[in-house]
């Protein structure tokens, strides 16, 4: 029993084990834990998937508030992919431009499209950033407010949300910009802060009384990122930056209070997350969190809405957080999408 032959079974088993071990890995189960039928998104430019991708804007290769390219880039599109639902398309398109060189384009509703977010939209007030009702010239953004976006969806969906809808809500930024502008016209900073608190409370109320109350079971509400930590704010004095931060915090506080105790709502704290990205950029592979990746002197309009790869400040803008003075780069959106996804996974929603 001591002969070399004794090694034979040993070697055979070793060989078998080695062979069994061959073969590469695979993707694993990519199916989300909840089977969603579609994404319905409400909000502003951060969720806009092409409301103004018409006429001159489309010809310039623009349409989204980021670095425009062949693929959809904003967080709602990335999240839709993670949730295995169809990429959202703009529920309404058009442009009511009062800029002579940019022709207006008729407003059209698109059945079967549920991306309601529009650049410039506020929570309740229909006159948002670059709305045609403001003194000309204006780009003529439609700025249908979130309240009305929800009403339009209900009007075409039998007054209800489907239980397997993935609903996203992100708004408030344009209320900051419009209230700041109103301060120039005589509004007191205190009243501006109050107006933001009111808007936050209203958004929370719409989520509860118009979305959840009408049947939605999975509503992702992303609070307002800190507008005081954007290139837009960095161009202002410190006192105004502080005011902007207070406006954002008040908005978020009332929004949180408004949706508290609602299991159908997942509130994602993008405010805190964004501040962490600003404080620890390297952890997020961010190399520039202060200046835009788009060269706004090269773009036809001073906004990322018409920014493409040919209008960047450098050939390589990897690691830039901002495309223009307020909107994220595709990478910035990706970081937001990851954070929202992580919250949803923890909540058993993805």
């Amino acid at each position, binding site marked *: *029993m*001591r002969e070399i032959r*004794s090694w034979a*079974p*040993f070697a055979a*088993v*070793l060989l078998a*084990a*080695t062979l*069994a*071990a*061959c*073969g*590469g*890995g*695979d*993707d*694993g*189960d*990519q*199916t*989300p834990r909840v089977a969603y039928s579609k994404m319905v998104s409400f909000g502003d430019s951060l969720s806009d998937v092409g409301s103004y991708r018409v006429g001159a804007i489309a010809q310039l290769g623009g349409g989204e508030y980021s670095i425009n390219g062949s*693929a*959809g880039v904003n967080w709602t*599109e*990335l*999240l839709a*992919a*993670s949730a*295995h639902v169809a990429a959202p398309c703009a529920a309404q398109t058009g442009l009511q431009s009062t800029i002579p060189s940019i022709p207006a384009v008729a407003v059209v509703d698109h059945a079967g499209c549920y991306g309601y977010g529009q650049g410039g939209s506020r929570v309740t007030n229909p006159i948002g950033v670059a709305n045609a009702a403001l003194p000309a010239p204006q780009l003529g953004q439609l700025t249908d407010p979130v309240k009305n976006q929800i009403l339009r969806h209900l009007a075409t969906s039998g007054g209800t949300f489907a239980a397997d809808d993935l609903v996203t809500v992100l708004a408030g930024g344009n209320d900051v910009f419009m209230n700041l502008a109103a301060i120039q016209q005589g509004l007191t900073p205190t009243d501006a802060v109050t107006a933001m608190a009111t808007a936050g409370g209203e958004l929370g109320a719409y989520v509860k009384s118009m979305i959840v109350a009408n049947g939605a079971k999975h509503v992702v509400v992303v609070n307002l990122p800190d507008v005081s930590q954007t290139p837009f704010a960095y161009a202002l004095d410190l006192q105004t930056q502080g005011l902007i931060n207070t406006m954002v915090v008040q908005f978020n506080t009332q929004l949180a209070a408004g949706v508290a105790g609602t299991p159908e709502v997942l509130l994602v704290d993008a405010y805190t997350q964004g501040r*962490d990205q600003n404080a*620890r950029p*390297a*952890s*997020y*592979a*961010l190399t520039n969190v202060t200046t835009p990746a788009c060269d706004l002197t090269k773009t036809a309009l001073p906004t990322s809405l018409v920014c493409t790869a040919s209008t960047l400040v450098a050939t390589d803008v990897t690691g830039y957080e901002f495309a223009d003075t307020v909107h994220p780069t595709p*990478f910035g959106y*990706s*970081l937001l*999408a*990851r*954070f929202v*996804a*992580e919250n*949803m*996974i*923890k909540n058993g929603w*993805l």
Partner: protein
Amino acid sequence: MKAITMNRRMETLMKLALITGTAVAAVLVGGTAHAQSAGNWSVSLGANNISPKVKSGDLSAPSLPGTKIDVKDATAAFVTFTYMLTDHVAVQTFLGGPYKHDIVGAGAIEGVGKIGEVRQVSPTVVAQYRFLEAQSPLRPYAGLGVTYAYFFKEQGSGALTAITNPGGTPTRVNADNAWGLSPQLGAVYAFNDRWFADLSVIKTFIKNTTHLSSGQSIDAKLDPLSVGLTVGYRF
């Protein structure tokens, strides 16, 4: 969670089978002489539970700071071959598996649950010193060995893709193979001259790097504790 429950159930079943088998073997063959002396070969079969005690590093950028992993335990059948160099010194080889471990989120992503899985085989060779006389029915032993952990069939998940490459191609996982040092404690109980049971506890000190197709990577000390019970036959 379902998979973990299944694993635990299988583990319990296997342990039960082993204990029963051991008892039956003991009754059937009875026992008189118990030789574990120089030149003996023996082979034994059983089940082994490998429970990693993970100390995870952070997933590299871009990620939430403090994104860590944990690796769940796994049980599989295994076989050992033992050769007695002297009455006290043995060389034992472990071959088993494949062990299928769930990888779950930890640290900043604690609560996301399973984000992937990995299979591994970890052949181990140990040199043992067996206490007491060769004829003693119960012989405790201490050993020191080396382990080669070979990882394969790594799988990602929708969750992993969503937090590493949303909207992109599914994130794949590739765990580096690694060598580890494996101290061992155990005991052999001989039912008779031929049949015995062997209980072995091995701590393996091993660390590796796992790479994601998203370009990220994470280092982790795996340091598993392996508890194996076998029933063997001496030639």
